[in-house]
């Protein structure tokens, strides 16, 4: 059964019409695909079972003269009706059991699974690697996992409900504020695959993307090292540029003077900013630092108070780097 999908792909010419599912990259995915194809074929048969008689009857018994009467007034047939009342039970029971068997393992991580803690927030994913002590975050962040290694995701959200969706793994799980949800998988094919947010979460819902990068063991190890060391060696301005992207600052703050969801960084340094609750301040190093850590204290006039706190997510050096970055955009 497992290879039904591959079998089908041999029989059916590989065209865009028939590759209705994105490439599966795990055992779970190919199992789900088998069931999906089983559904497609059986539902097609059921559909034809309705539509072919419908068409034949419609043509054969069409009204040819305006006052034509029906040939028969037959109004019931016990066996026929019993047949289509009880036969579906068998089919539906098969589907239920089959679907449930595949459903449960998603939530039962095998022992020794690597734990990744995922936090969703508007509009980016942040992933903490518990063993490696690294964090990746930001719009379009790359989340690397070793190939063939069972992974357990423990997920939560810090604002609204998001949904962690990896089409190639056929997996999706809502990420809910106030509780943890879990999901486990094992990716068996190297490559880069999209991660999407599937639960509507606001303006930039469709930009809440990330990449799943499945790497061989040694590639993964070097990726981890790279992630660990990268920030330490970089010059401040370069690090600031990188962080502004990684932390998602640029999703709301533009660098070219256009107003997005927040004031543009261009030329903001050293300016006086009016706040929506009244009051104003000069944008200086101190202010930027405070605003990154406690953004809700002040909000620029005319903008929504949507900036999340980066407390604990950015190091002191990171803050200095961001200040350097914003300074570099001053006029």
């Amino acid at each position, binding site marked *: 059964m497992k290879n039904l999908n591959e079998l089908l792909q041999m029989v059916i010419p590989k065209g865009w019409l028939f590759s209705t599912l994105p490439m599966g990259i795990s055992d779970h995915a190919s199992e789900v695909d088998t069931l999906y194809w089983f559904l497609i074929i059986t539902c097609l048969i059921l559909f034809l079972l309705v539509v072919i008689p419908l068409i034949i009857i419609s043509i054969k018994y069409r009204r040819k003269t305006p006052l034509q009467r029906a040939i028969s007034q037959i109004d019931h047939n016990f066996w026929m009706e019993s047949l289509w009342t009880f036969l579906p039970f068998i089919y539906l029971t098969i589907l239920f059991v089959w679907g449930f068997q595949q459903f*449960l393992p998603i*939530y*039962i*991580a095998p022992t020794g699974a690597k734990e990744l803690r995922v*936090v969703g*927030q*508007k509009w980016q994913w942040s992933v903490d690697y518990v063993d490696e002590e690294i964090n990746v975050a930001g719009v379009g962040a790359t989340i690397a996992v070793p190939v063939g290694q069972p992974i357990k995701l*423990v997920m*939560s959200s*810090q*604002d609204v409900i998001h949904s962690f969706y990896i089409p190639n793994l056929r997996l999706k799980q809502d990420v809910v*504020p*106030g*509780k*943890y*949800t*879990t999901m486990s998988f094992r990716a068996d094919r190297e490559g880069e695959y999209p991660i999407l947010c599937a639960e509507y979460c606001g303006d930039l819902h469709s930009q809440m993307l990330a990449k799943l990068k499945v790497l061989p063991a040694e590639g993964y190890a070097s990726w981890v090292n790279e992630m660990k060391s990268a920030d330490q060696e970089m010059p401040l301005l370069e690090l600031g540029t990188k962080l502004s992207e990684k932390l998602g600052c640029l999703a709301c703050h533009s660098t070219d003077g256009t107003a997005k969801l927040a004031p543009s960084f261009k030329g903001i340094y050293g300016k006086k900013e009016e706040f929506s609750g009244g009051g104003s301040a000069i944008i200086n190093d101190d202010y930027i630092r405070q605003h990154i850590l406690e953004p*809700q204290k002040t*909000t620029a006039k005319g903008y929504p*108070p*949507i900036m*999340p*706190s980066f*407390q*604990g*997510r950015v190091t002191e050096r990171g803050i200095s780097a961001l200040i350097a970055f914003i300074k570099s955009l001053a006029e």
Partner: protein
Amino acid sequence: MSFRHMVLGPKPHIQSVALYWIVFFALVSLTLLTVYLSHYDFGAWSVLVTLIIAGTKALLVMGFFMHLFFDNKFYALVASTSLIFLSIFILSSVLDFDSRSYVDEQDANFRLRDEKVYQRSLNPENLPFRPGLSEPDKALLIDIGPGEH
């Protein structure tokens, strides 16, 4: 069937005043009983005992005062249908909460919070994950903390 019967329907069952008073005193006694019993702890059974007494009282009111015992039985069907759907609603929701930890104990945290997770200093920074985003919410968390008093 007489003409009068067709037009005015069956004669209404006029109950005696005494019956209504008896039902009323039964209701008052059950009220006193449930208050009395609430002083004793039956453990998990307390809820059940209380609900059985409340259910009996409701049955008395609906049966005698609302005439369900004497009237068209379809009214009783309407009332019980709504109760059945309501109990499906309540039981499914509670079952969901109860069974979240069956597969993965992480999922049980909604219940655990009661005892463990919420033993925090009510400082938003110490939440199990990062603090809430919007400004009013954060103010709230501080508002309701014991540190304020």
